[in-house]
């Protein structure tokens, strides 16, 4: 693997729950992120998937230094960034930019598109001399496929897909090396989604960007990511290349998640096995002991309640070299194919 541009280890974010007004007493904590490790290589796309409440958006906010972690470390090109402040923090933020989910609320309705995309230059004046900014903004509009003449229009004059392009242009303004995209296409219509995904891929190649791509849609993540991390209740439970995760999953949660995704092929419906999970995700204030997935797992045994499974290559696959040999936090990891293998192969993709 190429040299990592981002190394995350032991990342934790707990939000304290307090009682009392004058004499605040901590009564517990929402454990939004509870020990996350991963690395991101230059030019690579890491996909983080999981259901609502798994902590994936909190990870995004921590990576962009929008919040401070409770514990753990984030290294950008070897430099610890979680404890930076002042000028050093500003410099790092320039290099890690975020694209948000909702193109309707993440753009200021009273600012013109030119001002929105140019705003990063106000905060980081060293990125572009004042006289050059207008030209840079027009260039950015062109890069994301919008007419540079739109520079004086307001967000409401654009469609959802166009607004997302504006958000992406803003993210690119400072020439960052990493873009953290939190559900960047989930608010868009199907036909527009593809346009934005293709744009993100083109920009990655053009500017040698590294992406952390956060989404709940497993099909989109398979399409765009080189490596995938599956999150459950504040932790990564399985991680590997897209083939390892999608075609050779070994963690029961990943298997259930993949089996639940509808596949746009009615021929698959008869011979597809669905793993329907019982119960609901436990509250992040009260995480089960041992393996946090055990309360919904059909394989759970006594050991699962006692011992936290480490995110590592499971014992069973440690001496093999096949695609099942990847990190999976399960005591009883087994390979199971849940995504149907396409037979006819006459599709366009």
């Amino acid at each position, binding site marked *: 693997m190429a040299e990592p541009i981002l190394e995350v280890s032991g990342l934790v974010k707990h939000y304290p729950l307090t009682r009392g007004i004058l004499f605040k007493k901590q009564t517990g904590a929402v454990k939004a992120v509870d020990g996350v490790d991963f690395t991101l290589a230059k030019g690579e796309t890491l996909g983080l998937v999981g*259901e*609502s409440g798994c902590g994936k958006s909190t990870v995004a906010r921590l990576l962009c230094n929008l919040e401070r972690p409770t514990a753990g470390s984030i290294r950008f090109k070897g430099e610890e960034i979680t404890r930076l402040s002042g000028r050093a923090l500003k410099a790092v933020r320039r290099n890690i930019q975020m694209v948000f989910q909702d193109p309707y609320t993440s753009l200021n309705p009273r600012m013109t598109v030119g001002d929105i995309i140019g705003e990063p230059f106000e905060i980081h004046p060293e990125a572009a001399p004042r006289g050059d900014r207008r030209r840079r903004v027009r260039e950015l509009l062109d890069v994301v496929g919008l007419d540079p003449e739109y520079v004086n229009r307001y967000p409401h004059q654009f*469609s959802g*897909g*166009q607004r997302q392009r504006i958000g992406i242009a803003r993210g690119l303004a400072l020439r960052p090396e990493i873009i953290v995209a939190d559900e960047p296409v989930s608010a868009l*219509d*199907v*036909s*527009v*989604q*593809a*346009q934005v*995904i*293709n744009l993100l*891929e083109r920009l990655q190649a053009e500017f040698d960007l590294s992406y952390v791509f956060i989404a*709940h*849609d*497993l*099909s*989109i993540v*398979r*399409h*765009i990511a080189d490596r995938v991390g599956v999150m459950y209740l504040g932790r990564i439970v399985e991680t590997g290349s*897209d*083939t390892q995760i*999608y075609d050779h999953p070994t963690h029961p949660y990943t298997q*259930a*998640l*993949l*089996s*639940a*995704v*509808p*596949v*746009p*092929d*009615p*021929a*698959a*419906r008869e011979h597809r096995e*669905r793993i*329907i*999970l019982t119960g*609901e995700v436990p509250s992040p204030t009260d995480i089960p002991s041992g393996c946090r997935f055990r309360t919904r797992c059909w394989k759970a045994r006594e050991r699962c309640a006692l011992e936290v499974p480490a995110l590592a290559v499971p014992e069973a696959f440690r001496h093999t070299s096949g695609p099942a040999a990847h990190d999976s936090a399960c005591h009883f990891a087994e390979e199971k194919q849940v*995504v*149907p*293998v*396409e037979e006819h192969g006459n*599709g*366009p*993709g």
Partner: protein
Amino acid sequence: MLLEVRDLHVEFRTRDGVARAVNGVSCQVAAGETLAVLGESGSGKSVTAQAVLGILDMPPGRITAGEVFFRGRDLLKLKEDERRRVRGAELAMIFQDALSALNPVLSVGDQLGEMFVVHRGMSKRDARARAVELMERVRIPGAAQRVRDYPHQFSGGMRQRIMIAMALALEPALVIADEPTTALDVTVQAQVMDLLAELQRAYTMGLVLITHDLGVVADVADRIAVMYAGRIVESAPVHALYKAPAHPYTRGLLDSIPRLDRKGRELYAIKGLPPNLMRIPSGCAFHPRCPMARDVCRTDEPPLHAVDEDRGSACHFWRECLDG
């Protein structure tokens, strides 16, 4: 035929002009059948459902033409009180957002029970017992204890089950579900769709599933109607449509979604944007975005050509499209 919609037209009068949301929709649903209505935002799929159910906001909405036959009666000609009796008892609706569709100040037991009190004249006590039965039927754990809880005390998936319970309370002949699982997580979505399919079989209901998700459609639908700019552009049995679409818009949609079962190369992207309903393009509404468009597409609106006995496509060049 359980439901037959004929040439339905709906428009909205706004300050900026008239938005033509539904422009001649015709479709049928038989008992026990699942029809999926697929479309992107602004395609008219939800407005069609609202017009059928008689819950369209009028004004600004206006049904300008069409008939909606449900078990032989034209719903559009019924008086509001007659229609209200049909709705709920014979024809029910499941919405996307259960939290705003349920009454926040009534316990779920009272809301479910109300159906039996109002439509069946049951006593409150009997209605409460039926409410618990229904909650068990949609597999809400601890139904007897939770019947007094309020909607906000349930999770999203459980609320959606309560709404399904409410829709099915009086064993309607037809249920219209508008994006019933869109707001849910994927594992919960699977639970809810399975439940819906199971109950549909048990009651042999007709089901109209309104969605934008080609995956959900492939999983549950018998037939599919694809909508674009207020018209049905393709109507087909689900297997035939996924195998070989007969309309370039359908083909574009199928080609533009990333797949779980294969690592794609570049996605096909339909160029441009869905049309503004106040200025629907002349001829075929899809022509500005269509890779196959020719002169005739700009001038002549294509009728729904019969591709097969149970299949239609509103494309002048459906044969070419079918051949790929």
